[in-house]
């Protein structure tokens, strides 16, 4: 299993308190194209943030857009489509070969018995 490395066989029966957060699942591996943010153009209007199905728009204090989380981004392209200032462009994933894919929040695989969240 991608990302987490936890399979159903690893979890004890009666899983009421067991389980793992999907935040350790790298859905970014699905991507065939990726959004690239031009921070110089971005006005932090947060349209992309509100419309991202995968909560992959990273924001900082005061609601400024910091970047895009490639660990989760599935490359749907909505952000580029709705950006009012053209700050996000879509490029094929093949342009980024050899680059480390993982840029998640470092949640990593959760241990059995740890509560979600």
């Amino acid at each position, binding site marked *: 299993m991608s990302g987490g490395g936890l399979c159903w066989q690893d979890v004890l029966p009666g899983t009421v308190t067991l389980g793992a957060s999907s935040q350790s699942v790298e859905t970014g591996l699905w991507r065939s194209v990726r959004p690239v943010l031009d921070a110089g153009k971005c006005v932090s209007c947060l349209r992309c943030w509100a419309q991202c199905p995968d909560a992959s728009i990273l924001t900082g204090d005061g609601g400024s857009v910091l970047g895009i989380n490639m660990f989760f981004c599935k490359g749907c392209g*909505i952000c580029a489509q709705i950006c009012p200032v053209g700050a996000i462009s879509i490029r094929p994933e093949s342009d980024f070969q050899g680059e480390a894919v993982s840029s998640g929040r470092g949640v990593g695989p959760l241990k059995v018995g740890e509560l979600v969240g």
Partner: protein
Amino acid sequence: MRSVAGVNMKNLTSHRNPLVEGHRMCPGCGAPTALRQAFMGIENPVVVVGATGCMEVSTTVYPYSSWRAPFLHVAFENAGAAVSGVEAAYRVMRRRGEFREGIKFVAFGGDGGTYDIGLQSLSGALERGHDFTYICYNNQGYMNTGAQRSSATPRSANATTAPAGRVTPGKLQRAKNLTEIAAAHNIPYVAQTTLHDPADLIGKVKRAVETPGPAFVNILVPCNLFWKIDPADQVKICRLAADSRFWPIYEVANGEYRVSYKPKGQTPVEEFLRAQGRYAHLFKKGSERRDLIEQAQSEVDADWEKLLAR
């Protein structure tokens, strides 16, 4: 972004959303966007009840969960009943002083689990007056199992059990109007919206949750796979649905109707239909179905007039 009806986007970025990343919904799916926006309207701790559907299966892929809130998965037919029970139990525990106050209850389902299979339990829960909010993410078909028709599928849309072909031009019947059915329960809050404007959706769920008693919010979300649209066009399609009045944006608070978005200009329904592959058979060269396109327009016009008169 604009601050509408007390919705400030910048403040919302520090909101802790109960629905987290890593779910397995399709790239560009409207359902997780709708639910994430919905939860942005809720500051209190929530208990979430999910009927079976895309959203439920893709956020609870064993042993992972995309929920950092108490989450109860129930069958297609009983999300309304289950959330009733949870809310009633909470009320009793509160009375005994066993639980803190301020917990909100949210149930969600797709149109299959809401319009069709779960309608009886939802109707019961609305009638009994439980204090909860029901959110229907409506993609107008049984998309999880392969685009079978539901009672939310609009006329002329291509569905696998109402196929467009030589014999039939897609679904022959109209979609039923569940928002009106919910409003007919005389509950305090009913609303209908889509992903055209996050502030509208967030504001509506905020009002739904803050209203004591039952509330129902019907959110139109595109299914990229079976509406046959480019995932990137999702918001564009939602805007077309709102602008063409195909999906009127309105709310009913304590029986008072309020149209929350009155589109400027006259976007023909044809534009909304033409943008989607599920209506491609209506526009096929040589066998164009002008009659059905015009029928769609006249139905939308009549519905809009009816809504304005309310």
